[in-house]
């Protein structure tokens, strides 16, 4: 009898210890341990070493072109910066704040002469899961004048990821809607079940963001009043990007989860983007990730946990200053 009892208690202890260790490993793997890390710098260096020149017609070649064009364009221009605007020969940015249904909304109206100035930045200049930095840190690293958080691709192991012309991940996420930015600056919402990442690359895509859903397409709202991101059925901080016309973009970030700003539903966000004149608009990662940085300053009130604090993210969308 006693022997059986003893056996049982050892079994119980062994089970508890094993499950606790396994759970700890699973959570560390999901949230902490960096995985599949690719250095964006190494990608660029490989291109130069492999081709001797920037453009060899491959995706990697595009990385060099995008970055080179961006740095060329930002040189030798007269720059005027105020608290809520930035003007250079190639870039005009105006930041406005508005209140929409009890939520504070920050709108960055962007006019670019060269679409290659719309870029993506990666945390630690590397692609990989659990490689994170705050939006303002990444913005500072890349010298962005305006930055918003990206799609936080590192939190998922599927969904196309292309940044500055380089295809980092081509694993589709089923019915996932992506935002594609082509080399001429055109934005398009695609469904991963309809087209492969390689086909998009061949068509001239330079950026693919996989969060979603798409908010506006052809000027029409494409989300329903009750649509939400996964399980969330509530108002939240949001980040969205959209295109009004050639070279004319808009980035929107809303505060949420605070007494001062409730946050927007996807439909409300889509309505804001439509009202701003977007022909295409797309929802990026929201919640605690939602951050807008202008001229080195975080201008919204990002919520991380229960305080006003920036959350570390995988990537940003930014305008080269």
């Amino acid at each position, binding site marked *: *009898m006693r022997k*059986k*009892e003893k*056996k*049982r208690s050892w*079994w*119980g202890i062994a*089970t*508890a210890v094993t*499950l606790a260790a*396994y*759970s700890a*490993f*699973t*959570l560390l*793997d*999901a*949230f902490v341990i960096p995985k599949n890390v690719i250095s964006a710098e190494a990608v660029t260096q490989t291109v130069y070493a492999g081709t001797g020149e920037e453009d060899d017609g491959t995706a990697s070649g595009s990385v060099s072109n995008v970055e080179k064009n961006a740095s060329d364009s930002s040189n030798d221009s007269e720059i005027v910066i105020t608290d809520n605007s930035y003007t250079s020969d190639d870039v005009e940015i105006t930041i406005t704040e508005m209140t929409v249904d009890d939520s504070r909304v920050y709108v960055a109206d962007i006019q670019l002469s060269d679409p290659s100035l719309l870029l993506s930045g990666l945390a630690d200049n590397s692609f990989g899961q659990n490689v994170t930095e705050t939006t303002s840190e990444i913005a500072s690293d890349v010298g962005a004048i305006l930055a918003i958080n990206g799609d*936080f691709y590192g*939190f*998922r*192991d599927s969904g196309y990821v292309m940044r500055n012309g380089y295809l980092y991940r081509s694993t589709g996420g089923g019915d996932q809607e992506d935002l594609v930015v082509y080399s001429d600056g055109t934005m398009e919402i695609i469904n991963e079940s309809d087209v492969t990442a390689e086909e998009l690359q061949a068509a001239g895509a330079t950026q693919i963001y996989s969060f979603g859903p798409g908010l506006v397409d052809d000027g029409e709202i494409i989300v329903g009043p009750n649509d939400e*991101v*996964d*399980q*969330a*059925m*509530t108002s*939240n901080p949001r980040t969205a990007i959209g295109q009004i016309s050639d070279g004319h973009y808009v980035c929107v970030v809303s505060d949420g*989860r605070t007494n001062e700003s409730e946050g927007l539903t996807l439909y409300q966000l889509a309505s804001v983007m439509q009202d701003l004149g977007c022909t295409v608009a797309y929802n990026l990662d929201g*919640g605690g990730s939602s951050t807008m940085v202008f001229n080195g300053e975080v201008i919204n009130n990002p*919520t991380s*946990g*229960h305080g006003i604090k920036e959350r570390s993210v995988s990537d940003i969308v930014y305008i080269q200053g």
Partner: protein
Amino acid sequence: MSTYRDKFIKYLAVSVFCLLIYLVYNHFSHGVHSPYMTYLFAWPLILGALPSLLLTIRERAFRRHACASKTAARRQDEPVIAAGLYRTGLAAVTVSSLLRGILEIAGTSSVYQSRLMWVGAGLMVIGGVSWMLARRSRSKNIIYSKRPNVQ
């Protein structure tokens, strides 16, 4: 030796604990929900407390109609390994559900979580089937034997 009534109470306590985990986590999840977290308490309740309750009722009914020695024999003949496998499987499934809830609320997923769920489900099936087979064969022994194997 714990009775099925004791096990019922323990599983009920685990279910309440799971409900508390959900309530605390829900407070900090900004209205983001996962059914795996919301219904976490259902695993120990349905797959632990409910079978224990049924076995308690059955045991009491058996006790009314049989002699005490046979009841004691049934208790002692609990298939330990099969029951242990089932309990381990149930614990794995419950922990896996908790992990999935945490991951879903955060907006991510993990292959390790789904593996744990499958392993847990497998252990439960193996344990449950072995338990039933063992009980059936031992019940036959008790019924047909003139001298039950009581120590």
